[in-house]
């Protein structure tokens, strides 16, 4: 029983190649069926995202070439054209690769967490279509656990990696929880709307929109209200906020109500002077004001940053936050690799024990059978013995067989991974019935019910 994987990702293949192997959800069942019925394949799973296409399979040694045949016949992409982009792994390397993927180490954006959900859905769709078996099931569960561990025990998933989340991070350092705070958008553009969405998703409860053309302000305000559908990708699923359109002339007065101002107009000159901000601060009784200027050329007078309780960040500053966070994530890599290695070690133990488990069961069963047959045959000839004496004889037999089998059973349990040949030797030496390959399926089931991580 071996584990194989084959795939390509954003590092090894350009998008023109990746899109040829992309699987729509509707074709996934067919693909899994194809793999499942390929010669030598017992279990299969497919991890398909926009950045990677990977196939995992468990089977005999004949299963490996079947994966390439799948690309050839199912995707109708000749393997020769893909060879330079493909990576192939087996056994521990396959496991290591999936663990790295789940931990976000292999992602385009280091440590991003979306991949964890994608690994989960690869697991559940393979389960749903009957392609999952004990081994892959265990592998994917362990991969998900490994991904969670990496993100909770290290900082690989921490720190904003886009301008919108960086704005949220900064706002939290100024205001603490954002609940009850108001966002003012100057310039109803896509960038400012996206940034405001991040803030609303983090608790900001009111959005004011000012724009030179009032109609556009009204339109954006209505999307935040939830009155009209947004064409922005992020907005679906984000809680709605109280929102209000503000005329362009009115906005300086509304600086009193706002805590966070996002400016991104296309104006070629400054639209918010430091004097206006200073006047607003007085009216605000010096409550802190967070100004985000993501316009190029800039909208807000940089001198505003010098005012007490005013914090002005432009697009470069926010990008700086993102870069710092990325550097911090990179520093965490070695720790994540340690976690992955320890998980791979555990996986190897599990796989080693997998081979031993049916032999273990068969051996124990064999011993019990011999013991019971012989004891009962002897007792049949000793019918004069009292019930108590019979119990003593049975106890004697149990104790002899127990003591004899203790050492080999323990050896099998503990050193299956270290000496895989021993499993085979014991299997032959005791002339145990049934190949241990065949028993794998039935005897492993019980070991799989433990750690529930099912999506």
């Amino acid at each position: 029983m071996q584990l194989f994987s084959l795939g390509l990702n954003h590092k090894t293949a350009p998008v023109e190649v990746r899109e040829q192997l992309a699987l729509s959800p509707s074709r996934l069942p067919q693909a899994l069926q194809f793999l499942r019925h390929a010669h030598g394949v017992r279990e299969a799973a497919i991890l398909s995202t926009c950045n990677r296409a990977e196939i995992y399979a468990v089977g005999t040694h004949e299963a490996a070439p079947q994966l390439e045949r799948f690309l050839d016949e199912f995707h109708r992409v000749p393997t020769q054209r893909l060879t330079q982009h493909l990576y192939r792994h087996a056994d521990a390397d396959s496991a290591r690769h999936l663990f790295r993927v789940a931990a976000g180490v292999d992602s385009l954006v280091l440590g991003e967490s979306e991949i964890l959900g994608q690994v989960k859905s690869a697991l559940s769709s393979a389960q749903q279509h009957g392609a999952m078996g004990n081994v892959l099931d265990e592998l994917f569960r362990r991969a998900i656990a490994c991904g969670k561990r990496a993100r909770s025990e290290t900082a690989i998933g921490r720190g904003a990696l886009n301008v919108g989340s960086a704005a949220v991070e900064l706002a939290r350092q100024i205001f603490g929880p954002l609940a009850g705070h108001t966002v003012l958008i100057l310039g109803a553009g896509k960038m400012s709307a996206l940034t405001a969405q991040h803030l609303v998703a983090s608790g900001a409860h009111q959005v004011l929109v000012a724009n030179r053309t009032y109609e556009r302000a009204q339109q954006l305000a209505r999307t935040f209200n939830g009155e009209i559908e947004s064409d922005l990708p992020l907005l679906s699923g984000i809680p709605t906020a109280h929102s209000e359109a503000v005329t362009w002339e009115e906005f300086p007065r509304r600086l009193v109500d706002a805590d966070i101002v996002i400016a991104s107009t296309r104006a070629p000159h400054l639209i918010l002077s430091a004097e206006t901000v200073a006047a607003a601060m007085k009216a605000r009784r010096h409550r802190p004001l967070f100004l985000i200027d993501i316009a190029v050329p800039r909208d807000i007078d940089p001198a505003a940053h010098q005012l007490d309780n005013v914090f002005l960040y432009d697009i470069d500053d926010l990008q700086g936050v993102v870069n710092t966070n990325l550097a911090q994530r990179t520093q965490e890599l070695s720790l994540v690799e340690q976690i992955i290695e320890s998980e791979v070690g555990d996986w190897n133990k599990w796989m080693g024990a997998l081979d031993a488990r049916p032999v273990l069961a068969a051996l124990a069963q064999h011993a019990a059978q011999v013991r019971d047959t012989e004891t009962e045959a002897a007792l049949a000839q000793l019918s004069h013995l009292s019930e108590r004496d019979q119990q003593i004889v049975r106890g004697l037999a149990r104790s002899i067989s127990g003591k004899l089998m203790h050492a080999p059973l323990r050896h099998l349990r503990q050193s299956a991974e270290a000496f895989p040949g021993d499993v085979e030797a014991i299997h032959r030496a005791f002339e145990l019935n049934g190949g241990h390959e065949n028993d794998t399926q039935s005897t492993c089931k019980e070991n799989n019910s433990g750690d529930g991580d099912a999506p």
Partner: protein
Amino acid sequence: MMEWLSRTEGTLLLWVVAAYFVAMILLWAQLFFHADDSVEQPRPWRQAMGLSSRILLWTGVALHLLALTGQGGALFTLRAGVAGLFGFSLILVFLVAEARLGRAISGAFIVPVALIATLYSLTETPLHRAVPQPELLETQWLVVHVSMIVIAYVALAFAFVASLLYLLQEGLLKRKQLHGLWQRLPSLQVADTLIYRATGFGLALLSLGLFIGIVWQQRHQPDYPVLRDPKVLFSLLTWLTFAVYLSARRWLGWRGRRTNLVVVYGFVLMVISFFGMPHVIQ
């Protein structure tokens, strides 16, 4: 029991100081080695540091309580006694309310303050031998006066530490130095609210405590020139500084760096009035 406590008080306090000191080093180490309270599952060694500093502080506080019970009346009449009482209360309150500003970051500032106070209390041990003047103890008012002042000091020490954290965070945000420490510092608004509340509470108790103290003194020694006692004057100056902060924050809407600096000045004055200014009477 009391006798044994009195005899071992000096040794006991040394252990207390040692516990506070090691805990302080651990808290600092936690900060410098990227201790991040917000990572869900702290790394094992970091967790171990956090746990051991907590255990050390609780042990220290328990031993400190033992040592204090051995001091009897000196606790309220001698400056060293009051300093010990203050250090003890500060750690105790920190342990009870540690999560408010972030454990490691606030502890890194609170524990040193308590440590200095406790070290100072060691200068006059064994305190039980310093026989308090009996007439000073004849009234319960002294105990009330000192307790109130100590609680006020604890609240104002918290306001002071929160101000330091605020100034640090504000400085980082203004200079746009957004790495390392800044995520472990409390947000400006959280720190600001805590400064305001702690100062309000502290000032109320300080007012009452000072009032009781002055009235008690006047009744005890009617001809004592209270307003020429430098300690009293400095205490009033301290009171005034905190009062200025509180009214400016409350009624004039002052906020931010300069306002919170007033709290820092106030705390410095408070320390001077406590340590630096002897009562003329003594």
